[in-house]
């Protein structure tokens, strides 16, 4: 079935089964590999993208339910002023170990800072609760979010 998707500011056409999760449309049909596959059940957050600015797990979102929503992936975050700041903080603090979860972490952090420019620790806990880091770089993720929001760690 044909779908027109608004991905990273461009309209992309794909021909896939309606139940195909957005993650696999992005990765396999469109070659956008920034969102990662970690669990397939929305439990780890590695696949996090923005759907109309909200952090969503693309592995459990069927393409048929995307409609004309704006999809933004990590691949376009450098063009987002807040996303760019978050990426810069991530680089400066050298947050990553293996790095696999970090695109999803950055998407959740950017969504948080867009809505809540100066998040408290509790805000951070709530917003980041859906993103697992198997290497457990949580200490630096928290510090990077604070740095990106101009707060002391």
């Amino acid at each position: 079935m044909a779908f027109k998707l608004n991905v990273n500011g461009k309209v992309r056409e794909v021909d896939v089964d309606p139940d195909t999760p957005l993650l696999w449309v992005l990765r396999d049909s469109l070659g956008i590999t920034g969102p990662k596959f970690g669990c397939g059940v929305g439990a780890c957050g590695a696949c996090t993208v923005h759907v109309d600015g909200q952090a969503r797990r693309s592995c459990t979102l069927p393409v048929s339910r995307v409609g004309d929503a704006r999809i933004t992936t990590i691949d376009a975050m450098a063009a987002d002023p807040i996303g760019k700041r978050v990426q810069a903080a991530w680089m400066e603090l050298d947050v990553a170990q293996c790095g696999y979860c970090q695109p999803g972490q950055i998407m959740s952090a950017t969504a948080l800072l867009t809505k809540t420019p100066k998040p408290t620790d509790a805000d951070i806990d709530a917003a980041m609760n859906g993103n697992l880091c198997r290497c457990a770089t949580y200490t630096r993720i928290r510090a990077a979010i604070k740095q990106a929001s101009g707060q002391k760690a």
Partner: protein
Amino acid sequence: MTLHLTGASRRDLLKASVVGGGLVLSFRIAAKAEAAETAGAQALNAYVRVAPNGIVTIMAKNPEIGQGVKTSLPMMIAEELDVAWENVRIEQADNDPKLYSRQFAGGSLATPMNYEDLRRVGAVARAMLVNAAAQAWNCASGDCKTAEGQVIHVATGRKASYGALAGQCAGLATPDPKTIPLKDPKAYKIIGHPKAQYDVARIVKGEPLFGIDVRVPGMLYATFEKAPVFGAKVASADLDAARAVKGVRKAFVVDGGTDLSGLLPGVAVVADTWWAARKGRNVLKTQWADHPTGKQSTAGFDRRAAELAAGSPMTTLRNDGDVAAALKGSAHVVEAAYAYPFLAHTPLEPQNTTAHFKDGKLEIWAPSQNPEPGRQLVAKTLGMKPDDITVHMTRCGGGFGRRLSNDYMVEAAWIARETGAPVKLLWTREDDMRHDFYRPAGYHYLKGGVDAAGNVSAWHDHFVTFGEGAQVASSAGMGGNEFPSRFLANFRADQSTMPAGVPMGPLRAPGSNALAFVNQSFIDELAHAAGADPLAFRMKLLGDTPLVGDKSSAYNAARMKGVLAAVEKMSGWKDRGKLPKGAGLGVAFHYSHMGYFAEVVKASVDAAGAVKVHKVWIAADVGRQIVNPLGAINQVQGAAIEGLSHALYQKITIENGATRQGNFGDYPLIRMKDSPPVEVKFVITDYPPTGLGEPALPPVIPALTNAIFAATGKRIRSLPIDTSQLKA
């Protein structure tokens, strides 16, 4: 020490990396800009290329699994080469035993195994550049020095850049690495200075770096369904139903073998997209043949362990003095049974490999920690010559020991050859969790004594583990030297085994990640029986002899006491009496992977039994040099927080021969809200630098359970922590 300086030319290097077609450009987009930047580069050896503009490319020879070696190993070369870090570009090497050695990620060995050799690689390249300058200037090499990518004639101040000199090195002899002096560490400008991971910019942009991101023209996608009971054969599968699914190209049975580390029986579905392959798999209705291990279970293992503990041990690992007599004469005797479960690794990137079989040759892109044994396994299983197989190493989305096995690699290779097209095999999370090489469960039945003076008078452990007779399963053993062995006059460790058809293998700090919990908890029990401060009790146990045991395997008690004293100070241990009710500090130490680690956890338990970890303090002694402090602290913090996951949440249960858990819903990982701050201090001692991927993990588990005891008076003897037993 073996050092391979082959003097391979750039052409040789290229030849090695493009066998069978090379990577498609989309996987190397990020490398393209650099390729232009380093055009015309001259190889000085298999690790170092210098471009005319002075940009130096250094090969990262080992798999990067998040432990930071893609940055830290090239730092060693760059330091002795004497170049500015900003002018260094790093390229991941292929698996290539002809050019490189020891290309694996395991045992926290990258630093100790490479620190000497790779500095010499850099020093030899630097010497060649100096020799080239000396030849051009008609002076002695000793008249020249180097600084940040330039050779300088000391007397005249004449300079030549490495970029200009590299081309003149081609005809020069490679100096003997052993004769080249190395820098005084005080002069280091790169080693010991914090460097961000080389790939950090690509990581935060989500660029394709990982095995799962590999794309090859004409590539198809595969899933592979194996039996829930490890190694069971396929009885039937509705291949036609799978083939009828839109996008599915092939569905076939793989007979496989019986080796749990090799190619196992299963059903492959290959399709245009991975989602189509999964949908094909969903309709297979695979039936599995009965298997001899189909009835095994965790409950059965628990029962059998108790039976074995009640009987005579099968093996004695060590027997010093007379434990039975010493126990009789002790002022206090403590008996306790400890147990810990199977654990899965769950690297966040599920297992995958891309393979392309063409004209009798096989090209593989794999996130493996151990690619060469993978190549050998593929060669043996497919009946190929190893030389006809190329393995490209991709960044690994976590390893933790899981990717030391290469089962996914041989599956992809087999499926690709059967398919006749390039294939990316990708496992589901459930595949990963149910087909792991689990951290072995284990059982310890302990008896210990304390004399009237508060010293440990006797220690007896009957360890029940998996194996047959005296042979234990992978990572399921205990050495006779395990602490507090050798520190006690009366010490005995016995062992009994039971068979299990469960794949087992190393998980981060294998052995230690379980034994530290048991031994450091039981030491705490003895301290409590003696009415002693648990930290002072440990200091006393470590004694006044700096080196304990045979020279070749001595335990450095002085180093351990050093970190224990450091963590006592960091954590405010002496003020722990001021903590509110329900909160406590716990301490533990453990030696593993050549590192000495002492850790304190502050935890509290509420009326409902919920555990909160407030903070972790870690003092670490890994020798005289921290190679990359930025990465080092990250490793230590991550290892400790991972240990909390083990302690608080994780358990793999075997039921009806199969793993029950399948995803993060029933096998949780710690999340941000539960992750405490971790304060790290490196205690510098004059010993060779050793690794940091693993040794921080083991002590945090008993430090937590000991903190829970301090907070509640309740002793945790089984993992994961059962909070229902901690209710007020």
